[in-house]
């Protein structure tokens, strides 16, 4: 027993693949169903995301003649591995807090970039003009939201008194203060961009780019991308819950309340998705760098002042 048993268990079963995959499909169903309800439609059946993935598994895989085959095929797997590792680290920090290491929030920040990088790689390798435009937009989007996201984490780290481990951070619910609330709201929008949802879905832009970055993918490779997106829908809101909203706790009541917080974050994301138009890429960059940037500088200043003078609500 010991590590030989636990590490594969974590990665493959509980916070890792099986759990995140199943929950991700449920979350994808929620996204489509709530979206349908907002538009006064009935929406898909419960198992629809599962049917989609199974169907794509059975389809032919087409690889464009001019594509770089090796990168085209490995990029989705790299993205999937990144999300898998991300959800494992988050899950272990949430449910086995004694097993984590100091500084895992920094590892998580790096792991969160991996799916976007894989998307850029895969779409650039596919030799399609639509995918190239999508990749360029995704690249600009990554550059614009990473800075506000890291600044939001700095606010949290200051609020929790210099904690650098997720388990330590998640014992402080920093959303209850002014700076924490600003940081939570801004990082919610960054997560929206990371998930590639409206208003920041210009990389996939169904109406103008076909499906942008995923244009040339078909069959099982597309299924891997869909699974990756579904798993991100679990990992990223879970991350927000742990960093800003006080985590999942160690008691049963804490766990239930933690799941409630996860559902609240997901529904917030879906409502933002369904009530906004798509913005242009330059508008998104301006929004993240100028408006989010200024708001977060103010939040960092407030958090620092609150820390020095011991005012908890700042």
């Amino acid at each position, binding site marked *: 027993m010991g590590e030989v048993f636990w590490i594969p268990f974590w990665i493959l079963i509980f916070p890792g693949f099986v759990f995140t995959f199943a929950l991700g499909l449920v979350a994808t169903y929620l996204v489509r169903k709530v979206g349908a309800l907002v538009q006064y439609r009935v929406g898909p059946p419960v198992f629809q995301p599962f049917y989609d993935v199974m169907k794509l598994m059975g*389809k032919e895989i087409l690889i464009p003649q001019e594509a770089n085959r090796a990168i085209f095929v490995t990029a989705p797997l790299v993205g999937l591995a990144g999300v898998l590792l991300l959800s494992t680290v988050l899950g272990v920090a949430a449910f086995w807090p004694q097993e984590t290491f100091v500084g895992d929030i920094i590892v998580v920040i790096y792991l969160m970039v991996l799916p976007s990088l894989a998307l850029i790689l895969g779409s650039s390798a596919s030799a399609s003009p639509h995918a190239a435009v999508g990749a360029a937009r995704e690249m600009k989007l990554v550059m614009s939201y990473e800075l506000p996201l890291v600044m939001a984490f700095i606010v949290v780290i200051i609020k929790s008194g210099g904690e650098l481990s997720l388990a330590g951070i998640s014992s402080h619910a920093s959303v209850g203060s002014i700076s924490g609330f600003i940081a939570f709201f801004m990082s919610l929008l960054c997560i929206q961009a990371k998930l590639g949802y409206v208003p920041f879905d210009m990389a996939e832009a169904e109406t103008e780019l076909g499906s942008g970055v*995923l244009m040339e993918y078909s*069959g099982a490779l597309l299924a891997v991308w869909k699974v990756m997106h579904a798993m991100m829908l679990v990992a990223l809101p879970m991350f927000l819950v742990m960093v800003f909203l006080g985590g999942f706790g160690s008691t049963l009541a804490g766990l239930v309340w933690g799941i409630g917080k996860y559902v609240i974050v997901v529904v917030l994301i879906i409502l933002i998705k369904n009530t906004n138009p798509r913005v242009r890429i330059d508008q998104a960059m301006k929004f993240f760098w100028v408006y989010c940037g200024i708001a977060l500088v103010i939040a960092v200043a407030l958090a620092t002042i609150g820390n020095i003078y011991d005012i908890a609500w700042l």
Partner: protein
Amino acid sequence: MNWIRWLKKSPWVFHVNTGACNNCDIEIVNCLTPKYDIERLGIKLVGSPRHADALLVTGVGTRQAVPRLLEIYRQMPKPCVVFLIGACAIGTGIFAGGYHVAGPVDEILKKEDPNVIIAYVPGCPPKPEAMISGIVKALAIL
């Protein structure tokens, strides 16, 4: 494993207009509206032929459009189904023998791929109910 079983549960469609008058196209879009909502059946309109399981063809198949149609058909991952929507696509309708008509779409597709699976939805334009019924019937015998 019988993969066709899953295909029936989530047919993603790609719409291609080969010289239609836009009437059938409006009715296809009408299927997505809250009144008919074909997402109930798992049907989704996708933006790339590589994601599609079913090709919705409208129009007579003009000389300009036919090479593009064949290109799109070749790009679709198999197994896939072709739906011919409306009188024009089925048998060139009132444009039969016109100088711009390259022929009925089904014959052109059969020349390209003899094993192509074609379903016909007649009407000018077919009502959304007719399209949904056609898709359900075609998927039932697949």
